[in-house]
């Protein structure tokens, strides 16, 4: 049961669009920074496969400049 955290860098002007896109994804918790174009994203999924799918959906969201994975745990 993977739990991952990421730092997302986005284009300043796309913040709202991005937050909405992320909110639609299941298993995501988002923590936007208040003074930088950065969002901390924590994902929690049931299987490796779902985790992979989620990651690819994430990459499709418009306005994202860069995704860096910070930590990953498997709690099975």
């Amino acid at each position, binding site marked *: 049961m993977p*739990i991952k955290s990421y*730092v997302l860098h986005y284009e300043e002007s796309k913040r709202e669009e991005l937050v909405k896109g992320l909110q639609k994804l299941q298993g995501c*918790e988002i*923590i936007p*920074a208040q*003074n930088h174009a950065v969002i*901390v994203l924590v994902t929690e999924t049931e299987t490796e496969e779902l985790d992979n799918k989620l990651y690819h959906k994430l990459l499709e969201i418009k306005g994202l400049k860069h995704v860096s*994975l910070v*930590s990953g745990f498997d709690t099975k």
Partner: protein
Amino acid sequence: MSQKNIDRRSFVKKMATAAAMTAAASMFPGIIFASEQIENLPNGGNLEWKKGPCRFCGVGCGILVGVENGKAVAVKGDPNSFVNKGLLCVKGYHQTMCIQAKDRLTYALVKKNGSYVKTPISEALDIVANKMKETIEKHGKDAVAMYTSGQSTIPEGYVASKLMKGAIGTNNLDCNARLCMASAVTGFLTTFGADEPMGCYEDINHADYFITWGNNMAEMHPVLFSRMLEQKNNRGAKIIDFATRTTRSSMAANKSILFEPQTDLAVANAICYEIINNGWVNKLFVEKHCNFSKGSTNIGYGTEDKFKFKDKPVGINFEEFKKFLEDYTPEKVAKYSKVSVKDIKYLANIYGDPNKKVVSYWCMGMNQHTRGTWINNLVYNIHLLTGKISQPGNGPFSLTGQPSACGTAREVGTFTHKLPKGVVMNEKHRRLAAKIWKVPYENIPSKPTYHATEMFRAVDRGDIKFIWTQVTNPLVSLPKTSRYRPGMEKDSCFVVVSDVFPTPTSDVADVILPASWHIEKGGLYGNSERRTQHWDKMIEGPGDTTPDAWMTIEVAKRMGYGDLFPYSEENHVEEIYNEYIQFHEGAKHGMAPLEVLKKESGAIWPYVNGKSTQWRFNAKYDPACSNGEDFHFYGKPDGKAVIWQRPYEPAAESPDQEFPFWLNTGRVIEHWHTGSMTRRIPVLHKAMPHAYVEFHPDDAKTLGIRNGEKVKVTSRRGSCTLPASINQRGLPTKGQVFVPFFDESMLINDVTLDAFCPISKEPDYKKCAVKIERV
């Protein structure tokens, strides 16, 4: 799901959140998240947090490991550590996740009739001791060797040295730190007569400029780089990246200056030319504290077996030095360094401005260099001419790669020529070692034998008939493994490998010994800023895993040296450290007592009157200064540092018609050296699953190579096939390709050249000639 599982998941989630927030804070100091989020972060639950240094690099970040029911379940940065102030990089956070890897070596394996047989550890150690004894009896003591590591703990290095040099009486001990910072050592010794940096990481808080010489700190020293970025953002400090490849560091720097491989020697001289020509020399400092010298030139490259070199220093005067520099005007140097006259003058201006504080950082870029000692000398020249040294925010700072390259390899001295204090060539030093080790003085031979590359050449030649490697993976990390792998496979040499995981080196072993991992044993490391850090054993290791120090002691006892190794299994770390620090007593190198190290997150030597010495050679901070002046370079008999006349000389092998590209090799942030640990950490492996070869887009276009396409990199020694990487992680200059060496399935060191600096004997992994073919 049980309540326990839910609690655990929620805790892990909070840990993941904290890690990402800390990472964001390291990239954007001052970043603010909603306060309710921060309040929700875990404070540790029922975990017991145990302190220690990070396992992975020479920065030496303090970590806290959360232990629950005897298992390491979490890692966080130690907020009390002066090094990292709570911050860690991606490797640091995930370090303990390799311990449980399915293929962990948990039992000794002995090769019998071509296959490995699980063997009780004591039986395996009997075999090692008998084989070592038998080899010595048959072929002499110089037929056995040990090859250890800058990742060995201080006690591990100490007992290896005591066994080889004190008990057996051979100098056949060297270590993988030869491959990463031997040039830094010879640089320090030739210029200052004393090893290791004079400054400390607190320099970061004071410098106006950070000039990085061939040093991708954003990936290799990430936590220090974060601290530099913090200073850049908060008070406008500037980072100038001087390198042969555009990297993450170049992108975050204020300015990136690229140079043609090997020409750093000429650019450093051109900077000195400008400093003198513009009257920026700190005359008083130079007159009082410096001598001038020149050494031999055309000194060779060591590519032949049994290569020998001895420098012949001759004193010169300032005028002669000035005259020599006339060959290095910015205009002349710009022609072959590809650094513009403007950029050379820009760099000289920064160093020359008396109102700007400058720290120069470097690591493998300058050390893995066939003129590694020289380029270290030359950067010292710049700081000495301007008097910008040994003061907060002003100084040259050679960083190390491995967590205890300083603490173990350099301070304990696990090189063929070294002793815990001084060198084997010096009678006084041998007498001191003999006294503390309680061995006859005659036991310690006065001549060094094999440095790392020559040691593996001797294995290949059949001169070394027994070798024991600990905490290192030479068949991935040596240059020209295309020679040394078949060499180690030969029946003429009995190979013992102690490690935590199977590696290409353990694949050729006759005996594999299962080593304890970092937190499964106690130990001490010494980082780049002379900081010694201690940790206690935190968890039990699986199966028969045993600390390397204890395996060495057990072998020593079995060989009949029990009297010299009277340590107990429970307290050997403490007992060995207390014996070892006798070597360094005094104001110049005194080490902190263990009680202090147990309480604090490390202490910097010289530790004098209960205090760390942050800036050596400066009378204001360093109690060992005794000449009555502001500065005292007491490593040299006359108290003066040496400004060296060192010319530009070309690389051992340069691109030509047949092999038209430079090959540069190095590391990536996700992986620790040969990847034997980090490639077993799923999150790191997934982030960087395999090696690649980076191209400049123009070269890729000319060759018709697309991103991801397989290409073959071939040199006169071997070849390696990898996917192409264009405009991704890094960007080499035109005519150069870059390959990281962490991937044992794509062995780039089959391609590299075993040329080395004749003074330091450190190989140059950054420059050889290759051709590229699509496959």
